């Protein structure tokens, strides 16, 4: 198919449909409403289900139901709505169910604002709901990646039987760029023998459940899950390196912050400062190894975030505090400017941090 011009949010919705997702449950909230609006237009035409639930909580539990039946399913929201979904996400993780949850982040905490933010990083990567669990967290930095990573998220989620989250922000959701849509699949590549689809009296019935009242059994479930997480950490880390071969200062940024950072790096290079960028694409699993390796040869790192400094903790853990890590951030719906990032890079280069 020829390239089309799409909003990030539309690209998510169309890519989900092309990945075989025929069930969408959600509730409108700016700046992700176009996902729901697109699904409302398209799903009825292709025999799918679009349902505007009475709340985010009800939407995530509908996701639980469809996933239990072995079908690809998704919900989407923005920050306050994703907070409401956390109980359901924990239940999905505790029942080893795949699903896609999209968070097009806006400023917080509380009702916050409607302009872009990355301040749900902790919530997305450290659990968010109760209990020990992880989500696969993918961070798109373009409309093309909104499409590609939606497809990828469904695949990884099915493969590892765990929910995946696409962690975007309002700008990536609202911006328009040319995109080549992923190929159509039926979404049935991974067998789901655990699904509750009717036994036809031919097998034992399957049970989807997160309740284990015998502590020994619940411990085993947790240990098994963390073995699986280890495999994900070994196999599924994704990141982009930009001008890092010879860099003295390494910027680490994801999503919209990475785009601004690239412009800052161009400006730094023009001034003779060797700056580079590591852009995590998977936020969990976090690209620890490349950061540890890079720490061996740079003066320091600059973490560029639309938050008060959340990913910066993961950078410091990854490089075992070998080199200084400075924070360059704007919050509340603001985006750091290339000049602000450049200043932070210059400061790090000059030993001021």
């Amino acid at each position, binding site marked *: 198919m*020829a*390239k*089309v*011009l*799409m*909003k990030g949010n*539309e690209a998510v919705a*169309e890519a989900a449909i092309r990945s075989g997702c025929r069930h969408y449950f959600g509730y409108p909230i*700016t*700046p992700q409403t176009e996902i729901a609006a*697109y699904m409302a*237009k398209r799903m009825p035409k292709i025999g799918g289900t679009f349902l505007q639930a009475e709340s985010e909580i009800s939407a995530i539990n509908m996701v639980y139901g469809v996933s239990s039946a072995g079908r690809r399913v998704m919900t989407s929201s923005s920050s306050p709505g994703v907070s409401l979904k956390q109980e359901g996400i924990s239940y999905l993780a505790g029942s080893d169910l795949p699903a896609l949850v999209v968070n097009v982040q806006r*400023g917080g905490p509380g009702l*916050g*604002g*409607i*302009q872009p933010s990355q301040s749900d990083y902790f919530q997305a990567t450290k659990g968010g709901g109760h209990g020990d669990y992880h989500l696969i967290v993918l961070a798109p930095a373009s409309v093309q990646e909104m499409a590609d990573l939606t497809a990828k998220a469904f695949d990884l989620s099915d493969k590892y039987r765990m929910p995946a989250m696409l962690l975007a922000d*309002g*700008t990536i959701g*609202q*911006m*328009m*760029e*040319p995109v080549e849509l992923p190929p159509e699949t039926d979404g049935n590549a991974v067998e789901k023998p655990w699904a509750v689809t009717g036994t036809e009296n031919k097998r034992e019935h399957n049970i989807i459940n997160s309740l284990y009242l015998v502590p020994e059994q619940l411990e085993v479930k947790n240990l098994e899950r963390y073995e699986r997480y280890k495999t994900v950490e070994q196999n599924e880390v994704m990141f982009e390196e930009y001008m890092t071969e010879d860099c003295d200062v390494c910027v680490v940024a994801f999503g*919209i912050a990475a*785009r*601004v950072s*690239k*412009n800052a790096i161009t400006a730094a290079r023009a001034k003779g400062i060797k700056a580079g960028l590591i852009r995590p694409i998977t936020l969990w699993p976090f690209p620890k190894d490349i950061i540890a390796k890079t720490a061996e040869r740079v003066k320091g790192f600059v973490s560029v975030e639309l938050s008060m400094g959340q990913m910066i903790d993961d950078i410091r853990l990854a490089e075992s505090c070998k080199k200084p890590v400075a924070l360059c951030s704007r919050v509340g*719906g603001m*985006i750091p*400017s*290339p000049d602000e990032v450049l200043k932070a890079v210059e400061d790090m280069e000059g030993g001021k941090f």
Partner: protein
Amino acid sequence: MHRVTLFAGHYGSGKTNLAVNFALKLKNEGKRVVIADLDIVNPYFRTKDSAELLEKNGVEVVSPEFANSNVDLPALPSQLYGVVQNRERYAVLDIGGDDRGAYALGRFAPYILEENDFEMIFVANFRRPLTLSPEDALEVMKEIEAAGGIPFTGIVNNTNLGKLTEPETVLEGLELSKKLAKLCGLPVLYSSAERSVAEKINSDGIFPIDLQRKIFDL
């Protein structure tokens, strides 16, 4: 030249960029111009982003009080009545996307129809996924007319793929626009394209537009 020019279309068709450039063009021709942002749908990327540029050039800007703020409130400013009632200025109206965006136009439609000196432009971008064909575009046209209460009078071909736009992109869009024109019986007024693309096409029928660079553009 009509006193009121309205730009409407599928959201993401490029209405806002077109409206901003059209207002600046009128101003350059020495006219007194006001541009009004009627978009109650889109929370990001709107006329107000260009307010500084427009006002510096002497174009008056009327936009919702809460546009680009953190208040997600679909409210329209009272000055909008001045835009349609004060007939001493040329008015450029940027209508929100789709039928949902055009509902806001409804309450001003009686004044515009009564004055009867308007051009209601359908902005077409045939590289948008939900308007890839003239038939899809016609459906959107009808929905907008029903919601906004003002009949279209012409089509502008603004077919583009963002920064990947090539002259062929525009020209293919022009062919589809002509088919749409046949379906609805309205003329294709002109094509519009980002200035560097427009220069490559080098035709009188192309309106070159300048886009504002954003800090995250690569």
